[in-house]
């Protein structure tokens, strides 16, 4: 029974992705612990997804830890947990793992180019990845970078498209293109002082989006809005989706093979790697399976792997005669480089300024609802604060009525009535009509809305000598996200589409085989 490498590689990739997702959760966990507010949050988040994330963080951090602190058995070991939580910062782009600083090669080179200088922190952060790349080649691409998972998914999608006879295109892009992208990007960074490549670089994107998503998720949850804040995801996620579609339908192996500037950099440094795939000529039967399996489009069968090989070892899995082997070509040299890497890692420090955790005070904001209606010469300004009130919490309604032509301010009385608009029609008045509180020229009301939903606020005023009623709409609470039904609907449709296509293909094949 041949041992396959790809399950191990997939496990490593998934582990890295999980770590990237967990990093912001660990940071938030540590924040709550340090602020001694974890118990409160645990209660507030009970039964919610954010609560589950925090619990998972604690479960991971607490492995093998005695539940004891200050001699009290059963108490949460706060200090140890905080200590452990500090062992993972950052993302696949730039991280500190157990005190060891790791900077992606592209991150380091682009920062250096943009600042036109090499700082000591950059050197120490780059040292380990650089040495490992020289030792092992582009392993970062095959084993660490989350784009590997996207590409694998794209390959599966491509197989589905082929099965469905949807004829995906196979445009060929040159592997040399990525060096041009790298050169242009580094040159642009040096020229403008702006690092630009990281906007296109999948490991940077995944890390950034993960942090943005969890930061918004926890911040909103603290304000009792528990829905998944998909709106926090940005252009980066769209770009990844676009890469997936292009890889599946237009250019197989598009990104890693031909365009990734990071891949170009790793290739350059992996040129003289010591870990190599070698071929026993005697065992090779020239079956071509390894060439076809290579995700980089290289030819292991004729030993044409060059500097592009990322040691993913898919060719080993594909080889029916075990003619391909992997190993260090210079054992002594390899041991020396490994020792050097270990030596550096002992003294590497965390790089300052890496966006592993940021507390954005602008979020969540409380937007204001402002509606304006004209009644005769009077302009009625209706302001709700917050614009999207929470149920059970007192919210303000301010009404200002004036005549824009003469700047005269309305001096009569204003009454407010609030009714809930039921989902199945009908209204239920729960407030007023109540006279306003006067605050100078402003008319104020305080309304507590009973539950989530649509409301209608009716103003009664006597404008221009005529009693008038004005109805203003208001939404209370956080309406559930439409993504779930949208996703379910799309999924159902894709299944329907695949089924319809399968039926037609079967029918066509039957007709072809019939006499």
């Amino acid at each position, binding site marked *: 029974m041949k041992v396959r490498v790809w399950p191990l590689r997939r496990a490593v990739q998934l582990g890295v992705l999980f770590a990237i997702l967990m990093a912001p959760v660990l940071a938030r966990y540590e924040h709550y612990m340090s602020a001694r507010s974890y118990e409160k949050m645990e209660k507030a988040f009970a039964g919610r997804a954010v609560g589950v994330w925090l619990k998972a963080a604690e479960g991971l951090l607490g492995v093998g830890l005695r539940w004891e602190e200050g001699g009290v058995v059963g108490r949460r070991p706060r200090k140890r947990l905080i200590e452990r939580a500090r062992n993972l910062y950052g993302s696949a782009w730039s991280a500190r793992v157990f005190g060891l600083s790791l900077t992606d090669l592209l991150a380091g080179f682009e920062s250096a180019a943009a600042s036109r200088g090499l700082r000591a922190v950059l050197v120490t952060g780059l040292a380990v990845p650089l040495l490992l790349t020289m030792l092992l080649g582009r392993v970062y691409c095959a084993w660490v970078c989350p784009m590997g998972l996207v590409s694998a998914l794209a390959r599966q999608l491509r197989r589905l498209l082929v099965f469905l006879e949807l004829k995906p295109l196979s445009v060929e892009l040159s592997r040399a293109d990525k060096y041009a992208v790298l050169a242009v990007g580094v040159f642009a960074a040096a020229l403008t002082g702006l690092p630009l490549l990281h906007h296109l670089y999948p490991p940077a994107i995944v890390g950034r989006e993960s942090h943005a998503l969890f930061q918004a998720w926890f911040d909103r949850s603290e304000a009792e809005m528990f829905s998944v804040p998909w709106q926090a995801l940005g252009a980066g996620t769209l770009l990844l989706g676009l890469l997936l579609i292009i890889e599946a339908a237009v250019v197989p192996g598009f990104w890693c093979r031909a365009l990734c500037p990071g891949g170009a950099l790793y290739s350059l440094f992996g040129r003289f790697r010591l870990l190599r795939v070698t071929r026993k000529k005697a065992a090779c039967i020239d079956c071509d399976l390894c060439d076809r399996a290579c995700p980089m489009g290289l030819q292991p069968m004729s030993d044409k792997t060059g500097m592009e090989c990322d040691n993913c070892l898919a060719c080993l899995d594909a080889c029916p005669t075990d003619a391909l082997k992997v190993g260090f070509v210079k054992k002594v040299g390899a041991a020396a480089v490994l020792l050097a890497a270990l030596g550096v890692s002992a003294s590497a420090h965390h790089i300052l300024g890496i966006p592993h955790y940021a507390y954005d005070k602008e979020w969540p904001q409380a937007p204001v609802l402002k509606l304006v209606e004209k009644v005769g010469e009077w302009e009625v300004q209706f302001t709700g604060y917050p614009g999207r009130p929470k149920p059970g919490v007192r919210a303000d309604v301010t009404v200002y009525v004036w005549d824009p032509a003469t700047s005269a301010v309305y001096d009569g009385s204003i009454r407010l009535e609030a009714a809930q608009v039921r989902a199945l029609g009908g209204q239920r008045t729960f407030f007023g009509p109540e006279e306003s509180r006067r605050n100078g020229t402003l008319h104020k009301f305080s309304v507590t809305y009973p539950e989530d939903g649509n409301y209608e606020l009716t103003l009664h005023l006597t*404008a221009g*000598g*005529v*009693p008038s009623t004005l109805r*203003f*709409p208001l939404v209370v609470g956080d309406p559930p996200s439409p993504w779930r039904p949208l996703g379910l609907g799309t999924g159902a449709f894709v299944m329907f589409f695949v089924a319809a296509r399968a039926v037609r293909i079967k029918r066509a094949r039957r007709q072809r085989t019939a006499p």
Partner: protein
Amino acid sequence: MVLAGLIGLVGLDWARQGGGDKTAIDPVCAMEVRHGVADSVLHEGRRFYFCSSYCKDAFEKAPEAYRPADAPAEHTMRGIPTWMYQAGVGFIIVLSFGLFELLGRRSGRALEARFDLTRLPGVRAALKSPLMPALPRAVLAALFLAVVAAGLFGDQNPAMNIAPLLTWTVWWAGLIFLILFAGKAWCTVCPWDAVASATARFERLKLPWPRAARNIWPAVALFLALTWVELGAGITLIPRATAWVALAMLAMAVVSAVLFERKSFCRYGCLVGRVSGLYAMFSSLEVRAADAGTCAACRTQDCYRGNAKADGCPTFEFPRSMSLNTYCILCADCFKTCPHDNMALRLRPWGADLAVEGKPRADEAWLALVLLAMTGFHGLTMTPSWPRWVAGLQESWGVGYWTSFSLLMTLMLGLPAALYAVLVKAALARTPGASYGGVFVRYAYALLPIALFYHLAHNAEHFLMEGPKLLRLASDPFGWGWNLFGTAAWRPVPLITLEGLWGVQLALVVLGHVYSLWVTERAARRASPAGGFLPQLPMVTAMVAFSVFSLWLLRQPMQMRVSGM
């Protein structure tokens, strides 16, 4: 001429509006009126302005009743005043039982006038161009998806989101006006079908539509269902519900396009297509074969079968013998397929299809009845009496809102149908040798003009009074504080004053009635050529009843939708 008159009326009204910007509140109905055009009265040293002589008279009779008081007035829009209502009813009765009988004998010839648009330079080339519906369809599909996105992800406050106003006030109300002039032009650019056809390019099974469902009952059921959720659940004020309805429609269109041959859904299932199909018999635009001789000599019948240039007729029509607009979606495919360039796009007088014998069908007849009932029902739910009726039924029978609403809706559907059924029976007694079903189906087409023109009159209110608010929302469709076109802070005024609107509404209802009488007469003459006026009498009575009900509805005050929207 009528069209020119209508446009003139609106235009005149608009010009008059320009007079002054100062506005005041009518103390009787609480409407906003302009100083320049409003009647006014000096009372106790203060000038009061009125939307109409109706309110002015009411005020002059008892000014004290309208002084600032404790009782708040509803913010409603006045219906047409009593004198207009009475004049309208009188006019309709005179027309029905006297005047029209004298003029009716000569009708028919005038409807055969045609103007062939394809004779104009460039028109045929444009219709044969592959860009011709494809480009506008793509643009509209993109717009459609943007509006759905606004409904789903935008601010859920209906005053801040473009989806409800654009869908229900501008599109659904404006569609009827579009039909009047351009027939089923909406179907030509329909975004549902654009997305569905694009999907079906990748996969289609081309199954035949089930034989049992080769009628428009599916569309009738969908129309009733939509009216029910639209008015019962108030989805016109919920952006997300609006978007879900649009997506449900999209799902049906896409699934049908993948499963069934040609555009089966457009022909049998689509409620928009079928409602507009019946109304389009009235439209002033048609696609027909130009020369019958060329078609008779044609052996290939590419217009039905399709060829390399385009598909055969997507709605299963034979363009060579098509005599009605009902199922033609103006897709221009037959212009592309016809090897003899024998298709023509023609202007014609309104209602020309109703003069054609055609093949009356039971499902179409019932859709006409449903349309008549539901457009009236639509108007009724916006009167202040409606909530009182629903609440009254809830209390007296001890049922919930939904039951009460559904019962009243069924009643509104059943009453006109029952009245019509009884009067068909009466007409049958005077038409020797006709079957009940035959008479029922034949006369139902005469209800169409009444339904269409009341629909127009009702929608004119939405479209002209509330439609301009779209300008503001276009700049900030999601309610996220954008200002795309710099119009986000605009407070647009209605396109027409209230009195102008009343004139338009009254003219439309009378016009619809005249058309109905004319169709009744044609149908009666077909049923019994020597029958004279007597067999028509029950049907004319029905028409008068329905038209007077339309006028009565227009007389009721209409509740404005919420402020700020």
